[in-house]
């Protein structure tokens, strides 16, 4: 067993026909880490998570999850992980409590312990009052909270979440985030999350990998990733008496990458905008300018994401459908 590592992925590839959905990917996740994968639709996030959770066999490469090889010991891997898939998978014909109870029995958790654990988890996700209602009567947010609670019944040390807040309203999204933060802080779990919500990754993840076209193109903490792309903070200044000399002198400052004058305002591309704003204001005044207003737009993970993945919408792989049974029948969901 690789001590201290919750996930070790070496050169893993998954091909569907000639197309590599995941292409020679390597990464590691430490125990207790909150790790996120960011990527546009069709980047290979779901395929990767499905390989790590034994639902898809890799075409090549190796993945060790919770100390077990996903290809050689899939049953062992499944015992040690909890997975919240992208699609809602709770059974609509059962109540919330029944969903949890049956899931606990799949893991062989005995009566009293199971009962206590379910009571605790339902309380944690705020579903105690609705526990005996059919899941069919739940909202999307309630269903998602139930599904997160459900995969925690057997106390997995490693939790996989595939776009857990997709389609949720801002309130429900925040409830899920708060709950996940509690898990990582209180229960020392390792969490592996895929998302395409930048704020989600920025708020929750200690480290983020950016995946595009099946390859990891950037990996690090959100702050490190942002620091890797200099000059993307923008300071906007409204200056009373803007002159070409003033613009030139600002452009020569060491932390300034570019200064662009637009009528009576100045856009300055700088490193570390918040820190350097007072210096910039002083310099403008010294150069004879009058500051009317100032604002800083610090670069976000989204800027990093766009920097790495570009602005073009991905040419997504065409979903396979069964033309025999009807064109509306997808063969696979959420690849």
């Amino acid at each position, binding site marked *: 067993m690789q001590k201290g590592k919750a996930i070790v992925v070496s050169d893993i590839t998954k091909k569907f026909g000639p197309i590599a959905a995941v292409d020679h990917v390597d990464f590691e996740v430490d125990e207790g880490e909150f790790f996120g994968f960011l990527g546009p639709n069709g980047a290979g996030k779901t395929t990767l998570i499905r390989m790590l959770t034994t639902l*898809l066999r890799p075409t090549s490469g190796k993945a060790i999850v919770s100390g077990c090889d996903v290809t050689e010991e899939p049953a062992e891997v*499944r015992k040690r*992980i909890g*997975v919240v*898939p992208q699609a*809602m998978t*709770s059974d609509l014909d059962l109540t919330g409590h029944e969903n949890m109870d049956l899931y606990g029995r*799949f893991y062989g958790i005995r009566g009293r312990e199971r009962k206590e654990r379910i009571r605790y988890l339902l309380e944690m996700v705020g579903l105690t009052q609705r526990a005996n209602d059919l899941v069919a009567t739940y909202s999307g947010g309630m269903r998602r909270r139930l599904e997160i609670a459900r995969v925690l019944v057997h106390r997995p040390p490693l939790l996989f979440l595939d776009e857990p807040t997709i389609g949720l309203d801002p309130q429900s999204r925040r409830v899920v985030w708060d709950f996940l933060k509690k898990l990582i802080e209180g229960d020392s779990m390792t969490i592996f999350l895929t998302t395409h919500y930048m704020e989600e990754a920025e708020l929750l993840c200690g480290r983020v990998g950016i995946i595009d076209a099946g390859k990891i193109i950037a990996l690090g903490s959100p702050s490190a990733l942002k620091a890797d792309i200099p000059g993307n903070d923008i300071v906007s200044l409204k200056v009373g008496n803007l002159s070409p000399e003033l613009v030139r002198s600002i452009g020569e400052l060491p932390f300034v990458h570019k200064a662009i004058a637009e009528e009576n305002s100045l856009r300055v591309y700088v490193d570390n905008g918040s820190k350097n704003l007072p210096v910039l204001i002083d310099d403008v005044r010294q150069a004879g300018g009058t500051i009317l207003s100032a604002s800083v737009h610090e670069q976000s993970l989204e800027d990093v994401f766009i920097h790495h993945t570009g602005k073009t919408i991905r040419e997504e792989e065409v979903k396979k459908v069964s033309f025999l049974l009807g064109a*509306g*029948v997808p063969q696979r969901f959420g690849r």
Partner: protein
Amino acid sequence: MAVIERDLIKFKRNPIVIAMSILMPVLYLVILGNSFQGKLTDLPVAVVNQDTGPYAKRVMENLRAIQAGPKTFKITNLSSEGEAVNGVKEGRFKAAFIIPGDFSKKMSLQARPEVGLFLDNPDSISAETIRNLLNAAMLSIRSGYVPIRDKAGEVLLRDINLYPKVDYYQSLVPGVIIMAIFLGTLTSGVFNLVMDRFLGIEESYLLTPLSKAHIVSGLVISGLSITTVIAAIITVTSMLLTGIPLTRGWERFFPFFAVVVLTTLCLLSLMFVILGRARHPRIVGILSGFLNVILFFPSGAIYPVESFPGWLKAFAKCNPEVYSVHALKSILFKNAGMASISGDILFLSLFTIVLMTIAILTFKRTL
């Protein structure tokens, strides 16, 4: 107009539904056309000839001529009357025909000799056919040796029904039970798996430590529970409606229960093998009609298997519903015990074991 167009476009995009809509009536015609009112052939008949005289020889020649010509029955010569009658009771023969030792002597004396015919009467169509043919065979020896006007030489065919009379509605009860089992197995077991796949729920339990065998056997056992209850309700209701006595005793209940359970397991396993990888309930819909036609109508529930053409007879040999119908008829109408249906039980058990193994092996534990 837009609604009509939308519906027509969707229909056009379902080629398999279009193909089945055209092929199914043809298939129904072929299967149903060959399952009813066909000419009975190769009915197994035990013959005990205790007479060495010339008239008995003539009778035997007539029987062999029927065996060689229209092939309605297949003769097995036996020496003991008891063995022949037991053979009928055990289901090996449809009838036992006994020519007594004094047959030729009585014929010569024009003393109206008697021959015995023990019939498996719950299969009324076969019994009637055998009775009519043997009557004709007896008439022909009389016409050959005795002037037609001489009534004294007439042979008396004494036919004995081995079991209480079974009317038409009662004879349908085993088929009704099998149909209930078929429908039960179609709407439980693997169907729930297909629905889970369709609704995306399957992924949640594929992610748990449940093994292939756990998932398949769990679904089969739940299907078995549901179907057994359905079969029990249908059995009691149809027996009450048609007047079949319910008081058969516990020694008959066990074989009956065994046949219901094994038939259910057999069909659940078969469904699992066929639909184990289906991802859409539409496939179940398409196949259910097809399976019902090819399994039920050629099962002998309505018309005897002996009336089928060769290819359908060959198929019947591996159709589990044939064995189930035979076993249920034996239990309900002949008060048969476990020994009489052991062949059916063996086939159903083997079929279940083989198909269940295939179902588990072919079940895909990944997406």
